[in-house]
């Protein structure tokens, strides 16, 4: 009896992507009369997310909305959840086990990665060294972005040479250190693609500090407040904004449906928008920028 109880487990507490997701989920939950709780680890890390999932599962909510931090490592705790008849909805990231997740809601990340490649190549005039900063390997979304990015470069931008991927563990400071080091090692670095919010924020900070404005171009996934400021400051040339709020809202919808025994949709793609200095102040684009809180 009683209201439907849903818990959202974020990939990282406090990151604007996930906070915006939580805002969307809360709004929808209110609308549907769902009791929503939000939890998340202090670091983007499966060994920290696992105990949280375990305790959430122990509290036995009706449904679990989760952004798993690793495609493999999170299978075991989620299997346990499934065995306890908790409906699982994957928001943003996924796990490799296809039987987990009644619904999977996310951006088309391969496409987003390719779009980033095009934008960056354009910015650097089609030639030069580019570096990719990501979170960790084994995170479905960012891995897909890298895939899309590299395929696009290989296929259509012969002048661009990739320096490969460096991993920031979704930590702003770490990302900034990586870019610092890269600048020291490759003074002729032309472009940076940062595959997610914290990687981009950190990379942008490093570029800003190094005084390399204009010299190194950057395209980043996500559109958190810090990133938008970097865009406006000219540190970053383009952002690819997802719709985390919508992902959260849709997640709650699907969870509610699953609990009520209604039809659920197995895969729901959400849109992505390219944000540039030119369009950032237009109302349509302003709508998709992430929020720090709701």
């Amino acid at each position, binding site marked *: 009896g009683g209201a439907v109880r849903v818990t959202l487990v974020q990939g990282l507490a406090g990151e604007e992507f996930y906070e915006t997701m939580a805002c969307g989920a809360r709004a929808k939950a209110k609308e549907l009369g769902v009791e929503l709780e939000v*939890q998340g680890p202090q670091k983007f890390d499966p060994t920290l997310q696992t*105990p949280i999932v375990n305790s959430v599962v122990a509290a036995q909510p009706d449904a679990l909305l989760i952004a798993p931090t690793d495609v493999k490592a999170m299978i075991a705790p989620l299997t346990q959840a499934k065995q306890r008849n908790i409906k699982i909805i994957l928001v943003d990231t996924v796990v490799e086990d296809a039987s987990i997740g009644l619904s999977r809601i996310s951006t088309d990340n391969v496409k987003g990665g390719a779009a980033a490649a095009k934008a960056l190549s354009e910015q650097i005039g089609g030639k030069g060294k580019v570096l990719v900063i990501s979170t960790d390997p084994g995170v479905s979304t960012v891995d897909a972005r890298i895939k899309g990015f590299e395929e696009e470069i290989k296929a259509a931008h012969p002048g661009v040479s990739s320096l490969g991927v460096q991993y920031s563990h979704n930590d702003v400071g770490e990302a900034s250190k990586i870019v610092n080091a890269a600048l020291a090692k490759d003074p002729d670095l032309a472009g940076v693609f940062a595959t997610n919010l914290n990687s981009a924020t950190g990379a942008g900070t490093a570029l800003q500090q190094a005084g390399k404005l204009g010299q190194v171009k950057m395209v980043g996934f996500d559109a958190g407040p810090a990133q938008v400021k970097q865009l406006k400051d000219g540190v970053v040339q383009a952002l690819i904004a997802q719709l985390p709020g919508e992902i959260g809202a849709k997640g709650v919808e699907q969870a509610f449906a699953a609990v009520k025994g209604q039809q659920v949709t197995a895969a729901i793609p959400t849109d992505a928008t390219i944000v540039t200095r030119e369009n950032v102040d237009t109302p349509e684009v302003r709508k998709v920028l992430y929020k720090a809180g709701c």
Partner: protein
Amino acid sequence: MSGRLLSAQVFWIGLVLVGLLAAFALLRPASFATPFNLLNLVSDAAILLLLATGMTYVIITAGIDLSVGGVLVFSAVAAALTAEATGSLLLGAAAAVLSGLGWGLLNGVLVAHGRIPALIVTLGTLGMSLGAALLLTGGVDLRAPGELNLGLGLARWLGVPHLVWICGAITAVLGFALARTRFGRHTYAIGSNAEAARRAGVRVGRHLVTVYGLAGLLAGLAGYLSLAKYGITGVSAHSTDNLQAIAAVVIGGTSLFGGVGTVAGTVIGVFIPAVLQNGFQILGVRPFWQQVVVGAVLIAAVYADQRQRARRDQ
């Protein structure tokens, strides 16, 4: 280090843990105090327990080991690479344990014979082991062989995960060894007064090498078990392992100045933060509030322990 003294040392902080368990059980009987939850809690804490047990020995000698997280990761990487190259899980396990031991012995030799402060040595080897692990993997998490992750990682006996049995047994043996064997006695003696121990004929240098070696070996084993449990090497996940282990040891009544402490206390010290985290998560406390509340309750718990012990002594 009489039996009576030990149990008194652990008694009050144990009571605090019991109090916490009771409080959460009362607040959420249906979800907290279930075998499901408690088993998960124990199994999530089991690996930290190994690290903290090794740390107990080290801290009782008045040392410290910041390298455990790095050594754990290095060992997990060594195990994953070896298991992949040879196809043998056993060799993988051996690689983990031996590389852990190797790092530990390096720590021990530098501390005991180089006379370098343990904090610096193990901070250095933390960077070295983590850096080396990242070099071996290119900075990317390696995956455990499937048989390991699905085998040891999930296997249970009497409903309890193998991991828990292993960590529990090792902790029990080492707790007993610390309290009741010559090796343990010398550990206390060195931490209490290394010079007096040396004059009394205790081979302080060799003993310290062994103690750091033990801590390293346990970190190596922890790396293997963590690889089994989580299926990945976790190259970025263990940066606070050292502080967590040290905190557990200190919560359990071991003095950072050496000479005093018990493994039983450490076990309690591992579980107090674990229970707090788990309980607040089940209560649905928001993540940032959790940090605040866990911090405050931690202080309060140790305060209660100190007060009671002081009252008894006066």
